[in-house]
């Protein structure tokens, strides 16, 4: 896979939080979320494979990972717009971070700040929990070079 693709999310979590603090109601928050999702490059069909698929999402979602030195980079896609937006929020938080930083990241607090904590309840089928789990799994897996 084209490695440059992994570097395409130019925002970090602070900028994301800033964006969302400006939103005054749910419509603006979700519009923002879906706009962010649009920034995510569409994964070509041949990369939407079952191996890359994240289990536990009602929509289909795929996640790829690569590592430069000690830093982890992720790339994902989904066929649902809101999940795509959620993936951008996660990439903004986790891309370029090392394993310790990823493990220490308080995602509950993050989504609380974004006004999206309702998305986090475990009964939701959006797969946010599943995505976070896979992100952490990759970050902690022994990467063979």
């Amino acid at each position, binding site marked *: 896979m084209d490695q440059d693709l992994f570097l395409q999310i130019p925002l970090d979590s602070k900028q994301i939080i800033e964006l969302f603090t400006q939103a005054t109601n749910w419509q603006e928050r979700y519009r923002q979320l879906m706009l962010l999702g649009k920034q995510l490059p569409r994964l070509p069909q041949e990369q939407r494979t079952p191996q890359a698929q994240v289990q536990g999402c009602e*929509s289909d979602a795929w996640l790829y990972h690569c590592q430069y030195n000690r830093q982890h980079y992720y790339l994902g896609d989904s066929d649902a717009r809101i999940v795509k937006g959620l993936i951008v929020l996660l990439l903004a938080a986790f891309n370029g971070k090392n394993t310790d930083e990823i493990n220490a990241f308080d995602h509950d607090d993050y989504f609380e700040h974004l006004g999206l904590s309702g998305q986090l309840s475990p009964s939701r*089928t959006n797969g946010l929990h599943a995505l976070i789990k896979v992100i952490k799994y990759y970050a902690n897996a022994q990467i063979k070079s």
Partner: protein
Amino acid sequence: MQLAFKEKILEDQHANFFMTIFWTALMDFTPVRTQFPTLTQTFNGYPLCYLDTAATSHKPQRVLNAMTQFYLKNNANVHRAAHQLSSQATRQYEAVRDQVMDFIGAQHREEVIFTHGTTEAINMVAHGLTQYIDSGELILVDSLAHHANIVPWQVLAKQTGAIIKPIPLTKEGRLDLLAYDALLKQKPTIVALSHVSNALGILNPIETLVAKAKAVNAITLVDGAQAVAHMNINVQQIDCDFYAFSGHKMYGPTGVGILYGRLEILDSLNPLITGGEMIKSVTFEKTVYNTLPNRLEAGTPPIAEVIGLGEAIAFLNDIPAIEKIYHEKELLQYLQDQLKAIEGIILYGAHPDNIGAVAFNLHNEHHQDVGVLLDQQAIAIRCGHHCAMPLMQTLNIKGCCRASIGIYTNKQDIDCFMTALNNVITLLH
């Protein structure tokens, strides 16, 4: 004159009729709705708009009261102790069996078995019929079926070497009667049908389907989970061997359901669950099973839930059936019409004779996105595969949105829903 016409419709409710009916329910349903305390809530400042009755219905206050009263006054185990409390509880529990018998038009009280729900009821039948089916024999399953009416048959097929064949659908989402006739020529041993499809709201011509199956001596099971709350059920008229449904979809509590079975065949079912209550005598060498209905009700039953179900039936019986049917018919028609007017909407199998539910997608939009954005506005609908993945495969979709109604639904709910859906469409564009 109009009333006579209404009665005729009531008689014909199992048939498909394609006429436009200009009739407004005579009854004011506002006092019915006010009996449901959960419906007065708000979420994020929006009043709750509950259009997910097909998943589970809300419960009227009197059902909650009946269950509380049971625990406050009559709580005891049934069929066991010699004390007064127990005999009071047993009397109350057994009275509900009579109520259910009347409610579905069964012939004998022993034909009514309390289960934990539709799923358990169908599992009891599939397991219980093991000795009736041999390797290579055929089980026909409705393509509209809920997983609860598919998976137990797959297990039976796996255990016995029987073969499952789906009854195909027409383009309109109805069961393909020609294909059904062709399949019946292969002399299936069991035919498993749904009365009303949970995903699409399609009403099967159940009496015709059962009659055709019986003509080739097949054993028939009808999943009535989505039918009982919305129409008059008469199992003798349907003439099926088994009929299953859940209490929680008919304004009763969760954890209780009914298996109706024609006496002779019910009596020959091999019990799925064995233990206390279902035995006549036990020695370590030999156990003799009790007679029906106890034989199929091992263990302590969900007593308070059975009492709650009885109250739910009383609640339904207090509303003239014809009024209920018309009220819901009018609402569903209104809902279908409103949805159809939206540009870029796709409705699945939306026919005038459908019951309770309408399934749709917005063109090029994921059903989950629609669901999340509706939820922000306190609209409760179901988005997903509706436990009917084979049906979704037939429709060639991953899932869809389903709005479903109940006796407490009003026109305002539907207007609320339409406003919210239009907000979603604006947001997505």
